[in-house]
């Protein structure tokens, strides 16, 4: 009788631990997925802003077609790039470099620099680049939180049986780590 009670108590405690571990892992895994889609949202937002920017610049510096085309090509390459972290990183880096050159045109054309919508688009794009970086940072923070939970006591005992694996961090590609150079 006493043994039965002890067994039942232990079973209840173990079950509670498993449920706690499972729910904690699920919550963190969903956060990772949410963070991942956030990166996509911000990248897409950046692509959406570019046509407007190109149109605005065209009105003031139409003969700078080389710079404008570079931006458009980089945008197209980014859309065509495979939807994997590796594929996107290279294309996005190219786009950042091309946009840098486009914004540098503002220095050569005072009228363009004074244009309200150019300034607004510049602010929007700067903010969106920041958001892309922040959403990657949040993704990595979420992965860290998840991996910590996964490997901590007592979750570590159940994680394998519940089929939870370690997640990988988002890492900047070699190309993305070098600052894009801007030539005048």
């Amino acid at each position, binding site marked *: 009788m006493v043994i039965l009670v002890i067994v039942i108590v232990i079973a209840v405690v173990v079950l509670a631990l498993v449920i706690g571990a499972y729910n904690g892992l699920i919550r963190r895994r969903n*956060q990772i997925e949410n*963070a991942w889609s*956030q990166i996509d949202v*911000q990248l897409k937002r950046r692509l959406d802003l570019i046509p407007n920017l190109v149109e605005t610049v065209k009105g003031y510096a139409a003969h700078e077609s080389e710079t404008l085309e570079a931006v458009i090509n980089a945008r197209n390459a980014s859309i065509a790039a495979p939807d994997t972290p590796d594929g996107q990183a290279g294309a996005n880096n190219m786009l950042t470099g091309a946009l840098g050159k486009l914004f540098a045109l503002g220095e050569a054309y005072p009228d363009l620099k004074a244009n309200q919508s150019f300034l*607004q688009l510049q*602010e*929007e794009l*700067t*903010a969106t680049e*920041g*958001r892309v970086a*922040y*959403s990657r*940072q*949040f993704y990595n*923070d*979420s992965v860290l939180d998840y991996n910590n939970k996964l490997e901590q006591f007592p979750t570590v005992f159940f994680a394998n049986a519940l089929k939870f694996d370690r997640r990988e961090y988002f890492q900047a590609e070699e190309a993305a780590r070098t600052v894009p150079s801007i030539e005048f």
Partner: protein
Amino acid sequence: MFELIRSNKRRSVALVACFMLFIVLVGAAIGALVGNGIAFTLVALVFSGSVAFYSYWRADKIALKISRAEPASEIQYQRLHNIVEGLCIAAGLPKPGVYVIDDPAPNAFATGRNPEHAAIAVTSGLLEMLNRVELEGVIAHELGHIKNYDILVSTLAVTMVGAVALLADGAIRLMWWNGGRVSRSGDRSNGNNPLAYAGFALLILSPIIAKAMQAAVSRSRETLADVTACQLTRYPPGLISALEKLKEDTTVTHSASMATAHLWIEQPMSGVGDNGKLGGIHKMFDTHPPLDERIALLREL
């Protein structure tokens, strides 16, 4: 992180309990003096209960209102909105309300009861004085307060300090009620006016209680929010240079009042860094650690 949040929720409950206890005790004391103890105690209980309840739901709106904060338009304050949104992504928080205060002194605060019901207010002086990275540092500091639930304790304190201040104000009147009148023949002796004594005691106690409440929003919270800010921006120099600009600026934030002093990123009242005779006393009642200490700590990160 989670311990921080728990501790802040505990503090909030303690703050409300202390506040209610104080008001009920005052009510009971006055009641006992007047000779109707139970009625006064009940009135005090109802009063303190309603203030506490109201504080939880509405104190953020009150804090914004008494600071004359206006909602920031998305078009006019595009940069500010963008910075808030970006950092919210980094922190995994919903975007709080964004408010601007027309005040040349650079300062900012956050308020609300939880991340879903939060607001950030900055002065127009801050927007003018800081560049993008510095502003990001300050906004990240305020988001740190939101994330750590510091805003719950500090916002509750606003209305409760306000209520105590109101009582103290009333107490001054109580003192003069009968007590201040020139006695006429046939009057009872002035020394027998019990309300005067109660008023006098309340007058002395109230500011001390109010200060103690603000101390519940301990000064170390500011330092913690600074550290959280750097976790978000991953760029301590931004916040450091912002704090240095705040240090150089000596304008007093006129939009701040006694009740909201502890909310702001920089102590808004005069008397900071005062090394004269009263310097020590000012330091005792400071709601914030000295900016020099905060900057030095950030440099070590």
